[in-house]
Each structure stands twice: as C-alpha cells, then as structure tokens.
C-alpha cells in the first residue's frame, strides 16, 4: 500500500457564522485553511482558545458547513468534496471512511454501553456477533469493567462516558479519524491506553487530525502541528 497518499485535504476553506438572533452579527472564524493529511500521519491543531480549532474539526466532519473552499476526502479510492457532497454521500463517507470522537456522548437513552459501541461497528457492516465481542474487548481495554457494559452510560462519570465515546469512535477502524480532546477527562493510565490506540491507528495507515490540549499526548502522537491563527476581526 502506498502510505504517502493524501487522505484529507482542504483548499481555501472558510467558515463564518451569522447570528440572526443577535442582530445578524457575523463571526468570521476560518479563512483560507489549507490542510493536508496523509495516511499514517497525525496532525494536531494548534492555536489559542477561540482560534477555531473545534470549528475546523467540525467542518472536516461535515458537521459545520463550509462557506468557501473544498474539503477533499479519500473515500473508497476516490476523492470526494465533503463541502459540496449530497447529504447521502456524507452519511456514506462517515460510515466507512470518516470517524469522529466528540467530547460529549450523545446517545439514545436506555441503550447499554456495549450496544452503543457495537452499533458503531454495525455501520461498517460487521457481523453483529463479532461486533459485540470487539466492543467488549475495546471497553475492557479502556478499563470499563464488565459489570458496566450492560448499563446505559447516562449515569457514568465524565471519564467513563469519554471512554465509551472513544470505543465507539475507534471500533470502526475508519481510514480517517477526527479527535476532539480525546483525553480531556482521563487519568494517566487511561490516557496511555488512548495514546497506544492512536499509535496503532496510525500504524494501520489511518490519517488523524486532533485537538490535544495535553502537551504530553500531543508530543507522543502528533507528527506535526497545524497552527490556526485567530481571524483578524474587523474593528
């Protein structure tokens, strides 16, 4: 496999928000973002708070709409522009190519932790029985004890919920992974597990873009930093 090929590339990506309820205030957040990520590479988004790191990560997932520019994603051998793709195409790309680990767990209430994680594997057309076993193994690895697997995570601690989210994000083995503060509420032992999981994902050729405020994590896994400058707001 050619490990050099580009998995994700943005060209002139721009994003602004118009807040209609606040008198039409316009916030320019991103402008002219040119980012390139290759297979097996991990890029850390850097910049001061409010510079637009999370906005960029959400735009890369198609969660925020781009106002200008292209977001090229390598999906099943071809490049697709996420910024102009049909919603159905975005859904397909997310299922098989583009994984995202958000900071907060948002799930159907009363579904067990194990089913939530296994369900994410189902999106990749894995056999249900295998998905359950893989999900359980992944939860164990993230130190979620077996007696919690059958419980819905609504009552779990912040760190436990984040680990459910991580298991859900990693089980699909997506070729591209977007990670928003994946270790924010984890202790050192769990942080090391996540570092190892990210390193393994890189080794299998995944392209990773993340926000890592923890310098230890960033130094351990990031190949390069992508600096986001705060947009010069008009006075």
């Amino acid at each position, binding site marked *: 496999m050619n490990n050099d090929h580009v998995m994700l590339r943005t060209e002139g990506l721009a994003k602004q928000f118009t*807040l209609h309820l606040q008198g039409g205030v316009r916030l320019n957040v991103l402008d002219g973002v040119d980012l390139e990520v290759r297979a097996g590479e991990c890029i850390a988004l850097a910049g001061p708070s409010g510079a637009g790191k999370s906005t960029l990560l959400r735009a890369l997932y198609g969660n*925020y*709409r781009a106002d200008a520019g292209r977001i090229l994603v390598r999906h099943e051998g071809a490049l697709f522009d996420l910024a102009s793709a049909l*919603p*159905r195409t975005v859904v397909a790309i997310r299922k098989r190519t583009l994984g995202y680990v958000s900071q907060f767990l948002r799930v*159907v*209430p009363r579904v067990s932790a194990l089913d939530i994680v296994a369900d994410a594997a189902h999106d990749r057309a894995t056999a249900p029985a295998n998905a359950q076993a893989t999900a359980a193994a992944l939860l164990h690895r993230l130190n979620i004890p077996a007696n919690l697997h059958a419980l819905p995570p609504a009552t779990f601690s912040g760190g436990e919920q984040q680990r459910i989210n991580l298991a859900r994000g990693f089980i699909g083995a997506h070729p591209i992974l977007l990670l928003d503060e994946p270790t924010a509420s984890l202790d050192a032992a769990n942080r090391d597990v996540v570092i190892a999981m990210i390193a393994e994902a890189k080794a299998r050729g995944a392209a990773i873009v993340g926000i890592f405020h923890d310098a230890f994590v960033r130094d351990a896994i990031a190949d390069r930093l992508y600096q986001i400058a705060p947009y010069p707001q008009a006075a």
Partner: protein
Amino acid sequence: MTVDPDILLSARGLNLSFGAIPALVNVDADLWPGEMLAIVGESGSGKTTLLNVLSGKLRPQSGVVTYRDPAGALHDVHAMPQPALRALHRSDWGFVHQNPRENLRMAVSAGGNVGERLMAQGKRHYGHIREAAIDWLQQVEIDPARVDDLPRTFSGGMLQRLQIARTLVTHPRLVFMDEPTGGLDVSVQARLLDLIRSLVRRLGIAAVLVTHDLAVARLLADRIIVMQRGEVVEAGLTDQVLDDPAHPYTQLLVSSVLQA
C-alpha cells in the same frame, strides 16, 4: 420530470392552502431507501400536512408526489386510483399515528390487531398469522401472554408499540410516522426511540418522521427538513442543520430547546 434511479419517494412543487392559510408553499422532498427523514417545525408549520400529502391522504393543489415500487415502476401518488393507493397502504407502506387509537381496533385483541394487516394481504392460515403476531409482540417488547387481551387494557406506551407491530408486520418499505413518541412519558419515549431506530435499521425501512422534538430528530433521522408557515426554510444532514443552523427560524428553534 427526471427522477434519481434509486429514489423511493420524491415530491416536487407541492402547494396547498387552507383558505388564506398557506400549509405548503412550493415544497420539494426526496427520500431514498433505508433512510429516515425528519420534518420539524412548530405547530401549524405544515409538517403534518406535508406527511399527509406525501402519503396520499391529502391532495395538493399543485405539485407531484412520485413513488417507485419494488419493480422499479414510478407512480404519481395522487393520480393513482383509490383502490391502488389503499393496496399500497396495506402492503408497501405503513403509517404510525401519534394517537395509536386511530390505527388500532380497540375491540379486537392485540394479536388480532397485528394479524389483521396480514389477513388484509391475503394470508389465511390462522396458525401462521397467530405465530407472526406473537413474534411481533415480542419484537416490540410486549409480553406474548397478552396476545388475547384487548388494547384498552394496555398503557399508552404499549398501545404505541402495538401500533408499530401492526404497521411493521407486513414488512413495509416505507413508513410514515406522525409524532410517534408524542404524548408518552419520557422513560417510555426513550425505549420507543430505541425500538424504532433498531427496527428501521435492521429491516432497512425508509421512514418519514414528523416531530416537533429536535432531540428525537437528532437521534433518529439522517436528514431533516425545517418548515415554517408551509415553507421549507432549511434542509440537510440532521447534525449539520441542528449544530450549524443557517436560517433565522432554525436558529430560533435550536436555541429555544430546554436543556434537561
């Protein structure tokens, strides 16, 4: 008109007013197989009217709704003869009402309610029908021992699950749902959401879901249509529209949700 070769249901240029009140203004909508589309908006925005027009229950003043049958043939839903439309509602389509009493026969047993849809399709073997009814009661988490009980002995949440069993027993390809979790208490609602989501996914059913609850739309739907005064003001991927709303009305809707 050209229609995408994969599309299941397609609406173009729907208009309908009730007197001076516009209920649908130039509405387009598309649905692909296996996909769930949510229609959201406040009361009176036209979302239930749109559902009724898409399902052929209500005739638009102008515009076309096209359905592609399993053989690939296209049908103009509002030009179909009534018997053909009724046959479609009995076989390929299902309708889940907010009030399950509109769809259920309250004087017929739970098993009878489920089996009736099969009999309407020409199934006659009593043992097989009863078997299917019991199987579906289990799938919607109703104790099979209740198969001979009358629906009026059921709670609201059980009635809604019974309605879903009755609707899905014939394996429809397309289900229309009008506020399926409305009026239920939240613990029952959560269980029903999970049930709908897993059934729709497992059976590969396409669904159009009307809801005023943005959280329900987020958890169930791939795509969303936001309506205001009969117009589609915003449409797209559910998480995109809810997290990055562009239209002033969508921004108002999203910012008005109470956080529990």
